[in-house]
C-alpha cells in the first residue's frame, strides 16, 4: 500500500489552511479497500474483473447514473458540524466499498445470498452514499456550495469583481501535493511507466513486489477499477511526447497556482483580522477539505469508481432476471442506516 506523505506547512503561505484531514480520510478508505482486496484475493480480483469485459466496464457509469437519476432516494436533511459530517462521510464511503466487495463475491459465485437480497443491499449502499452526495440537501456538494457562498460574502470587496472571482477560482483549485483525480492519473501513470515500461500482464503485476507492486495496485484501484486491459489502454492513449508535454504543462501551472494561492491566503488572513478570524478560517478549511474529497475520493470510490462497478453489475443482473423489486422510501431508509451503523470505523 502506497504511503501518502503529509504536505509540509511551509508551502502553504502565511495563512496555513490545513487539508490533511482530506488526505487522512482518503487514506483510511484506501487502506480499507486494500484490505478488502487482500481478503478477496488479488489474483482472483484481477481475473474476476477481466472476465467482466471491457464493454460492460465502459458502460457501467452511464447505466449506474441512469438508475440513480431515475430512482427515488431517501435523502434526509441532516445538519451537522464539519467534523461529524467528515466522519459520517468517511463511514458511508467505507460501507460503500464493503458492499462493492460483497457484490464481487456474489458475481464470482462465492455467496449464499439470493439475487433479491444482494440487489436490496446494493440499493441500500447507493442510498447511503447518496445521503452524503450530490443529491442530498446536506451532502458534500450542497455543503461545499453553501460554505463557499458564505466565504464569498465575508471576502467580497465592492470593486474589481473579476479579480475577486479569480481569487475564489484559485482557492478552489488544488495544489501539489493535493491533486485532483485527473492530475493524479497523469502522475500515477508516469510512475507506473517507470516501473513497467510496457503494459504489465496480470502475472507480471502479481509477481512484482515492493514499490512496483504498490504503484501498480494504486493505479488499478484508483483509475481503472482493477481492469488490467484498462491499464493497458493508457499506454496507447498517452503517446510519449504528448503525454510528457501535458504532464510538464500541468506541473508548471500548478506551481503558478501555488504562488497565487499564497496571495489569496494572505487576503483571507487580512480579512480574518477584522473580527471574523475563526469563522473565516473554519470556512476556508471546510472548503479545502470538501473540495479535495470531491476531486479524489468521489471519482475513485463512489459509483464511478472501483466499488461502483460490481454494484452496477448486480443491478443489471437483477434487471435481467426481472427481480427489481420496488422498495418504499422507508424500507430503503431503514436499510441504509442499518448498513451505516453496522460499519465500524474509528473516527478521525
Amino acid at each position: 500500500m502506497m504511503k501518502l506523505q503529509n504536505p509540509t506547512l511551509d508551502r502553504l503561505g502565511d495563512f496555513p489552511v490545513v487539508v490533511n484531514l482530506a488526505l487522512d480520510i482518503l487514506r483510511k478508505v484506501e487502506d480499507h479497500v486494500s484490505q478488502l482486496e487482500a481478503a478477496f484475493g488479488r489474483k482472483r480480483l484481477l481475473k474476476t474483473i477481466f472476465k467482466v469485459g471491457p464493454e460492460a466496464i465502459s458502460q457501467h457509469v452511464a447505466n449506474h447514473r441512469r438508475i440513480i437519476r431515475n430512482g427515488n432516494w431517501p435523502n434526509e436533511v441532516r445538519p451537522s458540524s464539519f467534523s461529524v459530517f467528515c466522519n459520517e462521510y468517511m463511514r458511508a464511503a467505507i460501507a460503500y466499498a464493503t458492499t462493492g466487495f460483497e457484490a464481487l463475491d456474489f458475481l464470482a459465485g462465492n455467496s449464499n445470498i439470493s439475487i433479491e437480497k444482494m440487489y436490496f443491499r446494493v440499493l441500500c449502499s447507493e442510498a447511503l452514499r447518496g445521503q452524503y452526495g450530490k443529491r442530498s440537501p446536506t451532502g458534500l456538494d450542497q455543503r461545499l456550495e453553501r460554505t463557499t457562498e458564505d466565504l464569498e460574502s465575508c471576502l467580497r470587496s465592492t470593486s474589481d469583481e473579476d479579480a475577486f472571482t479569480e481569487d475564489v477560482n484559485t482557492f478552489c483549485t488544488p495544489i501539489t501535493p493535493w491533486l485532483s483525480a485527473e492530475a493524479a492519473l497523469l502522475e500515477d501513470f508516469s510512475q507506473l511507466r517507470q516501473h513497467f515500461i510496457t503494459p504489465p500482464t496480470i502475472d507480471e503485476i502479481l509477481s512484482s513486489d515492493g514499490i512496483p507492486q504498490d504503484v501498480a495496485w494504486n493505479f488499478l484501484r484508483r483509475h481503472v477499477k482493477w481492469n488490467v486491459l484498462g491499464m493497458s489502454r493508457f499506454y496507447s492513449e498517452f503517446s510519449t511526447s504528448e503525454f510528457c508535454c501535458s504532464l510538464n504543462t500541468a506541473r508548471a501551472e500548478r506551481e503558478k497556482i501555488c504562488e497565487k494561492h499564497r496571495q489569496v491566503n494572505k487576503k483571507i488572513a487580512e480579512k480574518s483580522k477584522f473580527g471574523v478570524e475563526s469563522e473565516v478560517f473554519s470556512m476556508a478549511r471546510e472548503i479545502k477539505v470538501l473540495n479535495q474529497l470531491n476531486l479524489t475520493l468521489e471519482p475513485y470510490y463512489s459509483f464511478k469508481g472501483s466499488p461502483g462497478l460490481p454494484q452496477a453489475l448486480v443491478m443489471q443482473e437483477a434487471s435481467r432476471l426481472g427481480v427489481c423489486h420496488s422498495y418504499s422510501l422507508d424500507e430503503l431508509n431503514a436499510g441504509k442506516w442499518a448498513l451505516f451503523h453496522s460499519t465500524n470505523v474509528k473516527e478521525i
Partner: protein
Amino acid sequence: METYTQHRLEGRSACIGVATGRPIIIRNQSDLDHVAIGDILVAIETDISYVPAMLRAAAIVTETGGRFCHAAIWAREHRKPTVLQAANATSMLSQVPSVLVDANTGYVEWDTRHE
C-alpha cells in the same frame, strides 16, 4: 446565393482562451476515441475516463458544472479554453462542422450555411 446564420451558446468560462475546431459530442465512452488533436470536446460533464481525449482536445464545452467541477480544475491546470454550463450544447452542436470556443467571454459560436 449563399447566406449564413450565426449561432451562439452562452456558458460560464472556466479557463480563458480561444480555439476553433470540429466539435465531437461525447454521449458514451466509445465517442472519446473520435476526439482527434485539435477537436473540441463537447459533453454533458466530464470524468476521469475522458482524460486522454481531453489532452487531445483544443477546448472543452460542457452543459453542466461549476467552479468545483473536474472540467474546471483540468482547464486551469492545462490552460485549455473551457466553457461550462452551455445548455443543450450536445444537441445543438451535433451536426456542426466547426465551432469557435471563446472562453474569454464564455461563448460558443458557429455559422450555418443556407443556399
